[in-house]
């Protein structure tokens, strides 16, 4: 038995450490640990709830926008504010561009090198790479000359003695399976996507002033005025510019990202057999919000538990609880989990003092708590969303998923796997890039009808709020279900809580010793060379970890802080 620690797990957001034991060429056990803690919820207490989104947005700069959105929704729910339709649509367009940009970055810049061997790409035949590229896509940058230029450029970097970001990759590892030409096509698109992502986020700059961390959210709406007759407002010229960017983003997704995801998936079929984990999936659902009608959400709400993949179980927020049995916090009774609204946080580090080689994984070993639903482990994210929406009968989601399964000759059950997550992420990007144009057009039509409203001012002044109130805001963020809870007393934040997608997925064990989704998914993963655990990275990266998001703390004083109303969900 070999014991290994991967720290830092790179090509993610934040600081993640994976420890594992390897026996007989397979992962025998695994532990997922977050090694950073900042304390957003403590910082937010006593502040003006209208400022909360500006703070909360900085939980994460990769998932920029998602915490801003969940935060304003939580405060609006508490104070009874109703953002007008324009504001809702602008938020949806910002959120949608976040999906598209974030998922493309994940595929090429965070995940691709688990499947793509850069060193092999330098040996490709440019003419054959060109034929391959043209056989899978109509994307115009596909000439032999283009691939030759890319190959020479990459070879120059790799062989320069200064390989920079490409240094010390697991190049030549036996688990790499793609031809030099396929590797070259994907490396070329790695470079193109780096430059492309800058373009799509200009939509957030138009609507939010800048990216990362756009700055036009408001409790009650958006701070970007709309006026067809003003140069200082969102006008039709600006909206035209936005549509052009959204259209070209859709083309990039359809002609580059999707074919490349299929290319990778079709060369690693056995990876639809690894990385499943618990096969319990949860989605809060989203788009559009606010809307009283959850059944209208494009991403459905609910829970899917295999083997009953066809049935959606209702989601009840009261059944969420968080355990700290194996986390660096103390509860009075650590055998039980606490609902986020009743959470306590007493950070109590009991791990080894730095510098250390291994954590004591038999004790507490992470800054993440372990959220559970009715005591069960839940996976959230693109795969969970698609499986829940499919089972709930959403027609557009059913269509793209069935199409992909036919192309890849797979069953729906095969999606519960490392590559299933990769495929699900690509498919929802395709869906989202289409929905974005619908939302954009709806906004244009609404403005053309003379509706210029962007803000509900009736609940802006704290004097218009109840003396005490509480609310929640949920969002299906690119990485999965996100919830913020707020309690307001006398115009100030009395308590603030957030439960993040990566907290669900990267959680440590709970009181029953149940492994978190990463840990369970890693069991049985083949490891050809424990010194170069490429396969472990494949499964961990398939979740798209975001550690800055994952660590949060609850009310340090404990006690009942938020009551979540069932019917509010």
């Amino acid at each position, binding site marked *: 038995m070999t014991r290994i*620690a*991967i720290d*830092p797990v*790179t*090509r993610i957001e934040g*600081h993640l450490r994976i420890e594992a034991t390897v026996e007989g060429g397979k992962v025998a056990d695994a532990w997922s640990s977050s*090694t*950073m803690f*900042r*304390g957003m919820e*403590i*910082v937010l207490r006593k*502040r003006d709830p*209208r400022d909360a989104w500006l*703070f909360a947005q*900085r939980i*994460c*700069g*990769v998932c*920029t926008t998602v915490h801003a959105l969940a935060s304003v929704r939580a405060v609006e729910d508490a104070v009874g504010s109703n953002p007008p339709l324009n504001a809702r649509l602008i938020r949806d367009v910002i959120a949608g561009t976040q999906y598209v940009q974030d998922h493309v970055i994940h595929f090429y810049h*965070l995940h691709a090198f688990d499947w793509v061997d*850069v060193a092999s790409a330098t040996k490709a035949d440019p003419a054959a790479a060109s034929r391959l590229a043209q056989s899978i896509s109509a994307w115009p940058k596909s000439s032999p000359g283009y691939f030759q230029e890319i190959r020479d*450029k990459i070879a120059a*970097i790799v062989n320069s003695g*200064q390989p*920079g*970001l*490409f*240094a010390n990759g697991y190049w030549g590892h036996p688990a790499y399976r793609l031809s030099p030409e396929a590797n070259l096509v994907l490396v070329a698109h790695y*470079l193109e996507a780096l*430059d492309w*992502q*800058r373009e799509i*986020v*200009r939509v*957030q*700059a*138009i*609507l939010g*002033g*800048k*990216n*990362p961390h756009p*700055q*036009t959210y*408001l409790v009650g709406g958006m701070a*970007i005025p*709309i006026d067809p007759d*003003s*140069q200082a407002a969102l006008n039709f010229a600006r909206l035209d510019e936005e549509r052009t960017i959204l259209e070209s983003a859709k083309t990039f997704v359809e002609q580059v990202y999707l074919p490349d995801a299929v290319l990778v998936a079709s060369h690693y079929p056995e990876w639809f057999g690894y990385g499943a984990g618990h096969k319990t999936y949860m989605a809060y659902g989203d788009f559009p919000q606010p809307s009283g009608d959850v059944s209208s959400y494009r991403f459905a709400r609910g829970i899917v538990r295999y083997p009953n993949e066809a049935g959606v179980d209702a989601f009840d927020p009261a059944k969420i609880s968080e355990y700290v049995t194996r986390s660096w916090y103390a509860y009075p009774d650590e055998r039980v989990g606490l609902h986020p609204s009743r959470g306590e946080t007493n*950070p109590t*580090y009991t791990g080894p*003092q*730095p*510098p250390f*080689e291994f954590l004591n994984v038999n004790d507490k070993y992470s800054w993440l708590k372990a959220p559970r639903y009715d005591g069960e482990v839940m996976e959230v994210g693109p795969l969970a969303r698609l499986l829940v929406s499919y089972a709930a009968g959403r027609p557009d989601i059913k269509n793209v998923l069935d199409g992909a399964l036919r192309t890849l000759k797979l069953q729906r059950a095969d999606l519960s796997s490392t590559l299933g997550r990769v495929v699900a992420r690509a498919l929802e990007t395709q869906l989202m890039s289409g929905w974005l144009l619908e939302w954009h057009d709806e906004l244009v039509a609404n403005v053309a009808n003379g509706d210029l409203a*962007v803000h509900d*001012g009736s609940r802006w002044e704290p004097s218009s709020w109840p003396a005490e109130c509480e609310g929640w805001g949920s969002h299906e963020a690119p990485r999965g279900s996100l919830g913020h809870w707020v309690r307001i007393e006398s115009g100030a934040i009395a308590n603030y809580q957030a439960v993040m997608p990566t907290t669900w997925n990267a959680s440590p064990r709970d009181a029953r010793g149940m492994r978190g989704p990463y840990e369970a998914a890693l069991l049985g993963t083949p490891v050809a060379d424990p010194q170069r655990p490429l396969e472990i*990275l494949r499964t961990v990266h398939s979740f798209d970890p975001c550690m800055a998001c994952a660590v949060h*703390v609850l009310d340090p004083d404990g006690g009942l802080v938020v009551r979540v109303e069932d019917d509010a969900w």
Partner: protein
Amino acid sequence: MSFAADSLDRRTFITFCATMAATLALPESYVPAIAKALQSAKRPVLVWLAFSDCAGCTESFLRASNPTVSDLILNTLSINYHETLMAASGEDAEALLSRTVGDDRGRYIAVVEGAIPTKDNGVYCTIGGRSAIDIAREVCSNAAAVITVGACAFFGGWPASRPNPTGAVGLQDALRGLKVINLPGCPPNAVNITATLVHFLTFGEMPDTDAQSRPLFAYGTQIHDSCERRAHYDAGEFVDAWGDEAHRKGWCLYKMGCKGPGTYHNCASVRWNDGTSWPIGAGHGCIGCSEAGFWDENTPFYRRLPDVPGFGVQTTANEVGLGIVAVTATAVAVHGVISIVRDRLHPEPVDPPPPSAGKS
């Protein structure tokens, strides 16, 4: 290796050099010097450390253009360590860092993103089993130049805001005496990061800075003095409610809490995301993200400045909007008071904890 010759055509490259010269407020005659520096045989080595951060500064860096971001991070520079972008993981990643510190000692640029938590022996941020401060001390003290990016590495950022649960500080407070250049902002603008790197590569030294080690080309002008809405401020034309006629016409956001007075940053001139827009241009006030302590000193964000306790400016917006003389006086007063408040509130530098004992 030259990035101009093999990957960008000559004109694009010269355009880039000219853009950099303009951003740095250098005369056009410097363009050839910039071009020459960027075509050196050995690419300059850079390591990027991320501690208690949100990766927003990394994301912002990736919005660089001219040269394209792929050229910048792969061809112009040799980025030997960057957790979010590098191919290597685990021990293989850490080996690259220690190899750079050894082989390129005194020659590499260290960029630091994120705050450094100092409480409890630094257990609130560890990488590869080492504390943030331990890594920062080793890597930064052997660098040719140290650049902090973002509010967190500058003064601790939001993790250091009240009540600062992890004892977070900025790099200059964590490692007293270390010479750093600060590129604050939440996040900083890609164009300013690139321009600072270009200046260092061209002249072998950092651009001129203010007393807080912020380059003057980027942090030398008050937002309020370069803002496109300034004429409305001077004319007493203010937005009173979100979405009102004044808001749609682009009037001044002062009454909505704008922190442009007292904030030094070039957002108004360089704007964001290839010049697409900037926060005030889009309709929301400035939050003052390039100023130390802004998470505490500038909040509540929607309260207009003179009402912020301690600023001592009792003038109402309408009064100060009456004439240019009053405006200038107020701006000076506001900035002066902010500096005083900041000096008083700025945490005393902490002593770095002693080097930790051997491995457990």
